[in-house]
């Protein structure tokens, strides 16, 4: 998975600038809403061909946790 490209698109979903998004970023409640979760499900599907669980993704508190779900399911 091209992590840099994935993070760039994730930044668009979270509506933050691509330069500022890092794995350590803590997700705020307002940016990590249900539409952001669903958009990320579609993004992971596009990059990995796998459809991950919405609930597992919704529980993520940081960008690193999203990456872990994306890579390991």
């Amino acid at each position, binding site marked *: 998975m091209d992590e840099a490209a994935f993070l760039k698109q994730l930044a668009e979903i979270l509506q933050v600038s691509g330069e500022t998004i890092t794995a350590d970023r803590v997700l705020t409640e307002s940016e990590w809403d249900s539409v952001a979760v669903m958009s990320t499900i579609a993004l992971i599907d596009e990059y990995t061909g796998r459809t991950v*669980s919405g609930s597992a993704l919704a529980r993520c508190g940081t960008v690193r946790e999203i990456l872990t779900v994306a890579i390991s399911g």
Partner: protein
Amino acid sequence: MTPKRAVLKAIRSYLPDKKETNADLAREFGDWDVKKIFDKTGISVRSIAAPGECASDMGANAAQKLFQDGLLTPEQVDFLIFCTQSPDFFLPASACLIQARLGLRTSCGAIDVNQGCSGYVYSLALAKGLIESGTADNILLITGDTYSRYIHPADRSVRTIFGDGAAASWVGADGGEERIGPFILGTDGSGAKHLIVEAGATRMPAAEAGAASPETQSPKYLYMNGGEVFTFTLAEVPRMIGELLLRANIAMEQVDYFVFHQANRFMLEQLRRKLRIPPEKFCMNLESYGNTVSSTIPMAMEIANAEGKIGPGARIIVAGFGVGYSWAGTVLTIP
């Protein structure tokens, strides 16, 4: 004698008078704006059934339009299928009430089908079976739901999406080529908990359903886990379309138009992208009616037909998916 073939001959729909616009919702919920609601849902206005107006009432109104437009007569109908998850009563079946209301023959078969977003395509599969087995010749297939009755007023995530309404389709008999089918049907009841109204029937009688906190998650109201439903849809619908093309022995390019259950714009757009369907071949016209559950596919087809997007001879794929989980897809050729 040539075998009988089922044909979808006409569709008429009915929406209740009361409308709820994005401006109404934005005003009610304070921190939302009209554009944001539209961008996410693709819906501008939903219709809400009046107090005392049931799905069967709306369904009968839709059927009356078929009669008034001279497309079908009540005497011709020999089978009524009413697909709903908002029946008038536990018993009898609402289809029996509609039979009397519309003055259909007493020699007419009548059943309810309890399915939601997949229900129209499931009902088409039943209609095809009834016609091609020689059991019936003119099937009145009515879909109708009043999900607004199940929604907590403060639950904005579902209030923006669902609308009430009904549609009546005439499935008739003809000779010639197959014009409805093949079908791909599927079920995964392990997903039931993600889109459910738990209380009110026999598993959890309404009187035993205590209030939950927050109140919007009381078992008396519609609960939808949007993320889980989306995950299911994104995984299952493309698989179903692939199987359908294979069974129909046609390529994606040979399909003129795709009419999927009009769930919401976000979900439809993700499915369209994943399946690589060009926008001009993909129906997205829920703006004026919203997610009317079992009625979105016939409503979408009625509008697409009026706009000239699906003319005679057009080969279209229709697909329903959602509550259950339940899904169904078929190929229709417009007569």
